[in-house]
């Protein structure tokens, strides 16, 4: 019997698990995929928003503004990359000047302090590469960029270090209501819990409907992005937004926390929930719209493109709280943008909610908020590199030459709790294959390391999903 079963190991599920692991509770996280952070959390703009965009009084506004300042501490504790940078919303005409004025007012109403309107000259001095037709901008200085999947992986690891259990490859099929709580049936087994937390992302409505009556629907909204080579990463210093217009939100141009340039997303409502396919025409359109911000974005430096799925609810706001007709069943649904930014505050809110429902939890004396630091070999000093190789010679063997990732780093992320089991899992945790060769050179070596460290056949190593086998069979031999 678990005290709490969390459905979904994205940013929300892992964050709530980690915050609950401060208490003397039995916690299980059920994840249908073979890795954490494998849907919406792995593909988004990776921004810690300031909080001027969401409507005054909405849950989005409330948790965004509360969540933003919490990132520094949690990223420090869990050794997750975070960089505080400015955000700019650009205005190119008088209408847009009015819009940024309204956004400014909304920001003030939402409680923002580090928000100003700046003129054309100030914009040019902050961002010399923007199109010169900019008239002015809304500037915030408390925006941030973060590694979203690194954060979820770190949260999962820290939650497990503090006793939470993670069950991958467990897709929830049905839920029974019983007198003490709930029994969750997955393709792998059954899990009994006093309380359920629904963090199932684009599938959260389906989970809700297994327990409670339908009260919201998730209609995924697809966004497509380009990732550009690190040599283009300095094109902008801030997260650069366009003004929302009747034609849509516009696309962003921003540096990533690892120094690449990210351009996107667009926005399309789609019917199929797990459709991660990019489309040629829409990607072309992203380029076109982005050129409004910077005319000469070097799209010849694109290293990959990807799709993000927003878990857009039909209610217009986050759906957070106990379902009216299902006691002890908490929905954390419709967590679309600014969901990542709001996640720390939502997690704390859910903990408080569960405490009030249950009558309180007892704190663990030995809760450890610190995750053992990753060795990021390339960032070490000469002295530290020498010591790292002396400690473990595998740090002297570079596997990924684009990102300079060593064998030591790859082995480490395989053997951690919530560790990597797939080629993409290794890539998300420590970046081999993220660079310009996209795994051309390091792919075979990563497969070999996974096979060796997990004690599985090379033929059974998968790229990402459970059936995504890379190799077919052994060659004929000579």
């Amino acid at each position, binding site marked *: 019997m678990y005290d709490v079963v969390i459905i979904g190991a994205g940013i929300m599920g892992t964050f709530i698990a980690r915050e609950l692991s401060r208490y003397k509770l039995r916690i299980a996280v059920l994840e249908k995929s073979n890795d954490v952070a494998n849907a919406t959390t792995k593909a988004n703009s990776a921004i810690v928003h300031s909080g001027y965009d969401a409507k005054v009084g909405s849950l989005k506004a409330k948790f965004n503004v509360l969540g933003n300042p919490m990132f520094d501490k949690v990223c420090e504790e869990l050794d997750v990359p975070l960089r505080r940078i400015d955000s700019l919303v650009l205005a190119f005409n008088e209408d847009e000047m009015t819009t940024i004025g309204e956004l400014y007012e909304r920001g003030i109403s939402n409680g923002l302090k580090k928000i100003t309107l700046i003129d054309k000259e100030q914009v040019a001095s902050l961002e010399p590469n923007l199109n010169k037709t900019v008239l002015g901008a809304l500037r915030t200085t408390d925006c941030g960029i973060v590694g979203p999947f690194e954060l979820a992986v770190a949260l999962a690891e820290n939650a497990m270090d503090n006793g939470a259990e993670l069950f991958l490859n467990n897709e929830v099929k049905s839920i029974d209501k019983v007198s003490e709580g709930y029994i969750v049936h997955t393709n792998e087994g059954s899990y009994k819990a006093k309380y359920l937390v629904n963090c199932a992302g684009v599938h959260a409505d389906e989970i809700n409907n297994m327990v409670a009556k339908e009260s919201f629907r998730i209609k995924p909204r697809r966004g497509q992005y380009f990732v550009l080579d690190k040599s283009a990463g300095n094109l902008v210093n801030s997260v650069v937004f366009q003004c929302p217009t009747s034609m849509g939100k516009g696309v962003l141009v921003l540096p990533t926390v690892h120094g690449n340039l990210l351009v996107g997303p667009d926005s399309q409502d789609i019917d199929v929930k797990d459709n991660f396919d990019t489309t040629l025409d829409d990607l072309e359109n992203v380029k076109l719209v982005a050129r409004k911000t910077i005319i000469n974005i070097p799209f010849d430096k694109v290293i990959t493109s990807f799709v993000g799925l927003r878990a857009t609810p039909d209610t217009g706001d986050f759906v957070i709280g106990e379902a009216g007709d299902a006691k002890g069943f908490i929905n954390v649904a419709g967590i679309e943008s600014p969901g990542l930014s709001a996640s720390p505050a939502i997690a704390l809110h859910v903990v408080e909610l569960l405490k009030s429902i249950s009558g309180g939890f007892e704190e663990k004396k030995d809760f450890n908020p610190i995750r053992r630091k990753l060795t990021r070999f390339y960032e070490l000093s000469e002295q530290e590199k020498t010591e790292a*190789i002396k400690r473990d010679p595998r740090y002297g063997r570079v596997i990924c*030459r684009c990102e300079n990732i060593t064998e030591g780093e790859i082995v480490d992320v395989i053997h951690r709790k919530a560790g990597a089991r797939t080629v993409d899992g290794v890539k998300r945790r420590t970046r081999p294959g993220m660079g310009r060769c*996209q795994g051309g050179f390091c792919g075979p070596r990563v497969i070999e390391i996974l096979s060796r460290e997990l004690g599985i056949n090379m033929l059974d190593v*998968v790229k990402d999903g*459970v059936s995504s086998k*890379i190799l077919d069979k052994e060659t004929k031999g000579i």
Partner: protein
Amino acid sequence: MYDIIVIGGGPAGLAAAIEAKKNGIDSILVIERDRELGGILQQCIHNGFGLHVFKEELTGPEYAEKFINELKELGIEYKLDSMVLNITEDKKVDFINSIDGYVSVKTKAIILAMGCRERTRGAIGIAGARPAGVFTAGAAQRFLNMEGYMVGKTVVILGSGDIGLIMARRLTLEGAKVKVVLERMPHPGGLTRNIVQCLDDYNIPLRLAHTVTSIKGKDRVEGVTIVAIDKSGSIIPGSEEYMECDTLILSVGLIPENELTENAGIAIDPATKGAYVNEAMETSQEGVFACGNVVHVHDLVDYVTEESRLAGRSAARYINDELRASAKAVRTKQGNGIGYIVPQFIRTENLLGGVNLFMRVRSVYSNSKLVVKADGRIIKEIKRSHMIPSEMERVQLSKEVLAAADIKELAIEVMEVEQ
């Protein structure tokens, strides 16, 4: 302190190191990132190497072995599994490996021989899903020929570059069905002999002016969307066609791997994506030389060897103070129909004999000539019955021709020959 550090132990680095040694330089270190010397040749188990250099047909590993043996016989020091992290302006090379740890060592000259990498799916913008089963041709080749694994059963190959063609045959011999090789351009990307020996001989269709726009498949590739391309390079509307396959192999070009070069502040030619070099294969930084595919992508390894020997010889001359840095340089310039020319600068005074200019034409030419102009004046014409972008062109000029006049710019262009 070394006299010469060679970065890369593939065909370029090996030939350069050996040649430098033969020219009297004793203190040489070759740094190789892979587990063995020979570079990409080790996975090229087909034959066809060495026709120019050795006058015999060798496989890739055989070609490499000749150089590896010679390197060892000459007692040239080398490090395997070693990655150069950084080179500095004062010629300090930082590298790491598991045995020596972090090593920082000074040298009088550096020879860059890091080779190239493959263009990827992202770089050519194929949309759709991101399943397993999409490989660059070189990666697939490594899996088959070095690791001993097949990558799929039914294969579509995009790109008719040489590795793509070689892989079409190799996969067929291993029992896979190669359904088609697609080429975006209206002409093949690889050598004619490879079209014949790798496709025609195995009845594998080559469809020119076609490409892949989208990939389908949740976990593993299930199929690809193929389109036709018109003369202007655009997709022909309505030409979409779906083809089932479980594997897509990309052979869509090679890019010189110049991160170290760029980080060291060495100037890169946008036309080659390699360093600008002079007649001595010396880069914009004195005493730093470059050769092989890191300078420009070659069609034959034999030419890599030739160019790298020049780099090795030049590095020896540099150390012996026989190269005049201040000598006046002639700039070479790609004229009409020429994609690039290497070297980009010629300091006539430093030439021992003549100079070989390597270049690629931009499209297919029949009955044409290469016209060499010195400051606008024609000094040489070479007739060519057939020229294609996939095969490098070479123009030899003697020192006398160059020294005769006070030339500033040497342009080469393609002209049609009137019938």
